[in-house]
């Protein structure tokens, strides 16, 4: 009669690393967490394949046994699940045929066994959930199959004893519940409730009930302490008075050695077994090897006293009083993204829309900023990258930002667009991607998809600083136009001090003959024509004409500046005109006009004070002189009388002669 009353063994041998450390409840982090602590499944990074073999070293001629094959998957960031097939998780006993039966001729009747009792734990599944980064819960279900083959004897009609084998089977699911909690970088906890629930699928008949596997409930607490990056030590203690101690040492980045010490009868610390092991990481593959040696070899060499079985209860069928010394080999393959996440992007803010006319400016002026959190336990150096497909040839990358653990930093990022962005005709929305890299990672740690608003090529946000990017003096159409106008007036050309003045006059008058002032069909703050478009369309509004005239001046080497006026009492009635550099030095200003109110003395690019003439292009049709008078009058009123520059509502933006 076989009973399973008292002694429980809460040790698992499905992981070579677990065997090596011995105390693995707080540290389990792979598919074998199904056994050790289901809460540890959330440590699976993406996909994990796990293979385990073992060899019983205390039994002669024993070869390697394929113990298990498992697949684990992390999904939706916080969930993880695993399934495992364990053909090697068997516990089989044979009770030899005890008495001999002879036939009438005196020959012994061969009987293979009296009983064959086998327990299997071939299938198991697990699921875990990260409540917060530091805390996870999980459960696992393991299917236990029991089978008893019993030899029955009977007397046949010839009064001769015969034997016959009858099979009996039972199966049940055992449910475990476990949690892991990481207090900080040093302390790790694990708590497992083994065999918390049991669901019977098939039960033995009453006659065989004594052979039912008795999966006793127990609780196991695991604690691990990390002394440094290199050393971590742990212990497990359970309600069945088993205490395990273990240490793992990272000798190199890719090589770890470990050892464990198994005791029983806590608090007596009766030594039971010791283990050593190591593992090697090669890219996504981790190869682990461990050796488990029992101090007491009785019952562990393939035969045992039946009383030991009678006294044993089981949480698992791998680690029992009959478990032999073993060499365990595990191969774990991590597929998908395998590096530790050091940084996360919490939020991305796009600081402006993209105006194709000024697309170069985003290479110097942040287009957005990302709020990055250090989710690791160590300070990191993080870089943020930004990329918009089609409009950027390569992602931009910021300089590294140092972020302390659990702190956030807002990292501004730039964008280097290519000229393809000028093909955008109208307001559109495109996908942009923000990445964050953290040292020493080579891959990005996180990424954030954001919306990038790209305006049409003629769109303008009203900022005079950006208006200059519409001014294209190198445009062949502009150069062609300015040459044509100047050539027509060649006879009046003079090579003296008034050359720039005269060229500006001719170009203005030429422009006035070719185009006319037309009110902006949209708000002028939104839409600006490129100079070539204004020439082509033969018309434009204030902004368009100013931009066009500035481009014409620039095409013949005349420096100009935009005068942006935003009246403080009427900001909506803003206005732009320009002034150009005659390159006549201030002492010769009377060559232009005796009236100092008609010009502006200001330093040019060379630092020399020269005479600048304000020109109002809205009166284009009235000719240069009227435009000059109006411009000078406006400038005098806005700047000299009302001190617009001093109070900030008038801005003068210098334009380079070439772009």
């Amino acid at each position, binding site marked *: 009669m076989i009973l399973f009353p008292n002694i429980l063994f809460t040790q698992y041998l499905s992981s070579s690393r677990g065997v090596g450390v011995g105390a693995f409840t707080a540290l389990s982090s792979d598919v074998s967490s199904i056994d050790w602590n289901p809460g540890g499944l959330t440590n699976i990074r993406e996909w994990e394949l796990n293979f385990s073999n073992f060899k019983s070293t205390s039994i002669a001629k024993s070869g390697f046994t394929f113990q298990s094959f498992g697949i684990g998957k992390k999904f939706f960031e916080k969930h993880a699940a695993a399934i495992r097939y364990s053909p090697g998780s068997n516990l089989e006993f044979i009770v030899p045929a005890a*008495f001999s039966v002879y036939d009438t001729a005196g020959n012994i009747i061969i009987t293979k066994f009296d009983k064959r009792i086998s327990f299997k734990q071939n299938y198991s599944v697990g699921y875990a959930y990260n409540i917060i980064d530091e805390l996870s819960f999980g459960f696992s279900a393991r299917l236990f199959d029991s089978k008893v083959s019993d030899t029955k004897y009977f007397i046949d009609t010839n009064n001769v004893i015969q034997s016959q084998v009858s099979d009996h089977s039972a199966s049940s699911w055992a449910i475990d519940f476990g949690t892991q909690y990481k207090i900080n970088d040093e302390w790790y906890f694990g708590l497992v409730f083994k065999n918390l629930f049991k669901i019977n699928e098939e039960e033995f008949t009453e006659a065989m009930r004594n052979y039912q596997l008795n999966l006793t409930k127990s609780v196991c607490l695991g604690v691990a302490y990390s002394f440094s990056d290199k050393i971590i030590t742990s212990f497990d203690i359970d309600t069945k008075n088993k205490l395990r101690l273990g240490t793992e040492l990272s000798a190199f980045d890719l090589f770890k050695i470990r050892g464990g010490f198994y005791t029983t009868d806590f608090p007596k610390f009766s030594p039971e077994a010791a283990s050593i092991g190591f593992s090697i990481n090669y890219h996504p593959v981790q190869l682990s090897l461990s050796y488990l040696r029992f101090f007491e070899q009785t019952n562990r060499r393939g035969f045992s006293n039946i009383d030991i079985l009678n006294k044993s209860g089981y949480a698992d069928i791998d680690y029992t009083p009959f478990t032999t010394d073993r060499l365990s080999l595990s*191969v774990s393959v991590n597929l998908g993204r395998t590096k530790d996440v050091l940084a996360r992007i919490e939020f991305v803010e796009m600081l402006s829309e993209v105006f194709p006319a000024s697309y170069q400016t985003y290479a110097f002026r942040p287009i957005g900023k990302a709020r990055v959190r250090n989710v690791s336990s160590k300070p990191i150096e993080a870089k943020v990258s930004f990329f918009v497909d089609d409009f950027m040839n390569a992602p931009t990358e910021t300089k590294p930002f140092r972020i302390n653990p659990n702190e956030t930093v807002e990292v501004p990022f730039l964008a280097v667009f290519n000229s393809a962005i000028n093909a955008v005709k109208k307001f559109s929305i495109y996908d942009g991607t923000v990445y964050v890299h953290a040292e020493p990672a080579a891959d990005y740690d996180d990424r954030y998809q954001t919306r990038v608003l790209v305006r049409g090529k003629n769109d303008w946000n009203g900022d005079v600083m950006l208006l200059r990017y519409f001014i294209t003096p190198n445009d062949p159409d502009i150069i062609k136009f300015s040459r044509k106008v100047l050539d027509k007036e060649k006879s009046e050309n003079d090579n003296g001090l008034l050359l720039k003045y005269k060229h500006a006059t001719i170009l203005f008058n030429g422009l006035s003959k070719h185009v006319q002032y037309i009110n902006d069909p949209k708000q002028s703050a939104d839409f600006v024509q490129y100079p070539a478009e204004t020439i082509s369309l033969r018309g434009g509004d204030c902004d368009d004409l100013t931009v066009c005239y500035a481009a014409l001046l620039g095409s013949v080497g005349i420096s100009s500046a935009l005068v942006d006026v935003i009246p403080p009492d009427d900001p909506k009635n803003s206005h732009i005109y320009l002034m150009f550099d005659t390159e006549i030095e201030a002492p010769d200003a009377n060559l232009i006009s005796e009236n100092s109110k008609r010009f502006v003395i200001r330093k040019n690019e060379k630092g020399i004070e020269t005479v600048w003439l304000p020109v109002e292009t809205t009166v284009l049709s009235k000719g240069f002189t009227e435009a000059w008078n109006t411009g000078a009058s406006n400038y005098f009123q806005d700047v000299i009388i009302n001190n617009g520059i001093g109070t900030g509502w008038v801005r003068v933006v210098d334009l380079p002669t070439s772009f």
Partner: protein
Amino acid sequence: MKKMNNKIFLLIIIAFVLGCQKPGPVELIDDKDDSKLIDIKSTGSVSDTLYAVSVGDTSGNFGAQNSRYYAKLIYQNIRFDRLLRKDSLINAEAIFFDKDNAIKYHNRIITFPSFDVGVLKINDDALNKFPRRMMLPMQGDTLIGYRYQLRKNYELTATNRWTSTGGGSIDAFDISISSPPTIRVLNLPPRFINVSEPLNIKWDCANPIINIFISGEGGDLLNRKLVPVMHLQIRNKKGEVTVPVKILELIPIKRFSRFVFSFVSETSRTVRISGYPEDVLVHSSSVHSIFLSVRP
């Protein structure tokens, strides 16, 4: 990347190939189980009792067990326990079959004639000489030979000596055989046993082999006979045996209302006697037979 994938694949293949063996089962040894001390011997068919020579064969098995001998000198020290009665006696028997002149009916041997060996004594006590008569076809009531038997009060002897004056072609002989250790069962329940529980039996006997013959009591009230159902041969290492349920379940409790458990300690040897062509079995045994009812 492709190279690395190949290595991973190779590792996985190795893991599979290395793991093709299955661990053997743990062989469980039960030190307390006496099954290994027990051999279940065939009882043979009931017709073997053809060779039974004695009403004193309390096991009903003696003839079957020794059927291959045509001449037997049998000495039995018998203790017989019934519910309300206990008997102790000595039973001595002898017969010398004439193997070469078998009596047949329709070409089937129905018995053998037997020789007259003159005056046969055991320990100086002369055995009674009984004529064997048989109704034979064509011949009617015919003397087919003699058998010898002596029943007397129990006595303990260390050696048993057979002597004969000889007769016919058989010369006189003087043969001695040591008595086996006497067997007495110490702890059998007085009335019944249950086959659903292991049966522990202790005895007072040092013979290295103890035979247990289990026979069903058949026949009618006036003509009861014993039918052998099981023969257990026990290697006597500790003066007791626990018969497992698995063996007890073989007892055909539906066929018989009562059973005789005979515990036999014996010595035997064969001798040649001048003038007799076959081996002669010289057998000495101590028998303790107990009537018991058997319950499921």
